[in-house]
């Protein structure tokens, strides 16, 4: 294929490049600049002052939120991966081709429903007079306070990530060499042992990437922590919305956002290193 620069080639390649530079790279770079601006009398001034960084990093609230967010996102990633794996495994190995296609189609549907609406719907299930407590009350239990707990936030996180993680895991399981599994079985390797010693290692890249996506999604989500978790404990995304929307302290919000991006980059790098460990040899 020819690769010299031509008007023809540029017509197709340039528009997206320009768009993403102008409206994706520049905004993110501007965030860096913004974090050094100062706010006086509710107006922002271009400046080069580390005051925002010092203020935010000097606050216990921030570090608490940071730890909370990190732990909750990591927990959600592990939980989602663990709960999704049996489903992905069963869909990949136990269903007929037709049934598998339907299963995939059904798993795609949630992507086109509003996450907000689904979260609101979980309120109907989890509230004190909600469906679950009414059902439990029917057999003489409860009511259990479920809304506005960390558990409810986790339900929201699962709602957010579960379909994506199942699909990504399914995708990686589909590429496993079936003869490897057969070989393991021939050598009298039990079912469970085959799963842990053949299937999971073979699908490690996909499984790690799936968990990484779950982590990224939950780390940045503010809907579940607010509307299912009741805003307690405070997460970084809640801090950002509060700082931006009510506080008008955009430079400080920028500091939080940049810290989140840095964290995500480190986590993504570590996850990808782990995923491909020993593969390149």
């Amino acid at each position, binding site marked *: *294929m020819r*690769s010299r620069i031509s008007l*023809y080639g540029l017509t*197709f*390649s340039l*528009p*997206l490049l320009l768009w*993403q*530079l102008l*409206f*994706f*790279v520049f*905004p*993110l770079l*501007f*965030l860096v600049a*913004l974090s050094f601006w100062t706010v006086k009398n509710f107006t922002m001034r271009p400046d080069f002052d580390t005051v925002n960084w010092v203020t935010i990093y000097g606050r216990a609230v921030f570090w608490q939120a940071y730890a909370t967010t990190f732990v909750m996102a990591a927990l959600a990633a592990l939980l989602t991966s663990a*709960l*999704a794996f049996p*489903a992905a*495994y*069963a869909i990949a190995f*136990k269903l007929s*081709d037709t049934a598998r296609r339907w299963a995939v189609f*059904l*798993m795609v*549907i949630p992507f*086109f*429903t*509003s*996450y*907000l*609406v*689904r979260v*609101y*719907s*979980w309120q*109907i*299930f989890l509230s004190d*007079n909600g*469906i679950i407590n009414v059902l439990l009350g029917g057999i003489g239990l409860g009511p259990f306070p479920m809304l506005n707990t960390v558990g409810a936030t986790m339900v929201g996180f699962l709602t957010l990530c*579960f379909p994506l993680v199942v699909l990504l895991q399914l995708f990686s399981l589909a590429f496993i060499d*079936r003869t490897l*599994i*057969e070989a393991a*079985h021939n050598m009298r390797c*039990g*079912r469970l042992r*085959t799963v842990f010693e053949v299937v999971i290692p073979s699908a490690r890249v996909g499984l790690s990437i799936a968990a990484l996506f779950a982590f*990224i999604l939950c780390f*940045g*989500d*503010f809907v579940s922590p607010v*509307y299912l978790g009741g805003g307690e404990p405070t997460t970084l995304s809640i801090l950002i919305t509060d700082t*931006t929307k009510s506080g008008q302290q*955009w430079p400080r919000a*920028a500091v939080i*956002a940049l810290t*989140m*991006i840095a964290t995500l980059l480190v986590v993504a790098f570590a996850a990808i290193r782990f995923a491909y460990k020993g593969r390149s040899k």
Partner: protein
Amino acid sequence: MTQDMTALPLSVHPSGTPAVATAPTAKAPAAAKARKTASHGAHDLNRNRGVDAALWVYILLAYAFVFAPIAASFIFSFNSDRFPSIPLGEISLDWYRAVATDPLVWEGLRNTLFVGVITGVVSTLLGFGAAYTDYRYKFAGKQVYLALALLPPTIPVIIMGLAMLAYLSRVNLSGNALSVIISHVVVCAPFAMAITRLRLSQMDPALEPAAWNLGASEWQTMRHVIIPFCKPAIFGALFITMAVSFDEFAVAWFVSGLNETLPVKVLGFLQGQVSPRINAIGTFVFVTSMTLVILAQLLLSNRDAKFRNTSGE
């Protein structure tokens, strides 16, 4: 019209190109058969009915979890109770009526449609260009180009929202529908690119050079060969990106100002009183999005059949 155009390069080359059309049909059943026998062999040894049944139950539970909120939202949108729970109240269309008579909802819907349609068209165009660039060209910095083209959806929406708000208000673009469109295209174009790229990878790499050899210019080849071949993917991308834009609320919430889209209104309802109106809107948006997705799916799955027809002429 377009059918003739696709047929043109194919019919001139009866020896080479029809293979493109017939190969997948011939290969697919054989491959499926091979897979089937392979999986049979793998299953026979360690098959255990109890485990299989447990896995079946697990699949059902997984889907129950995924669809519980969707189904509940649908059911309670027709329920008269102010605070939705069981036992169900009367069946009513009150919430739909409340939504339909709310001028703010209509305004939100108008904004959503406006933003969604333009976002869909622009994202599809940009995504097509990027997919074609990746398909055809090798150049220094291609990795960076692809990263720029595909990364935006992985940035948390809240950070995108903040960055967009700060940046766009700096260049006096924030607080209107245009700012929502700009931000949505950033997020949606990667989806359009991925869909189109997938389609291009199914194209015989010899097809384009063949058209050139027959004297077509690059532009003519684009118009008469590549675009017709990608047509299902282009429409698929259009519908999918529109559906993504219809549901996006976080970035829109940050940048939209007074021109709120429907999902941003829903966010407002969530913040205020618990309101079953959300269910009515959600069901409406769900039906709209699903219609778009199913249209896209039909287009994307009929492509092989269509392509066979055109090449057979």
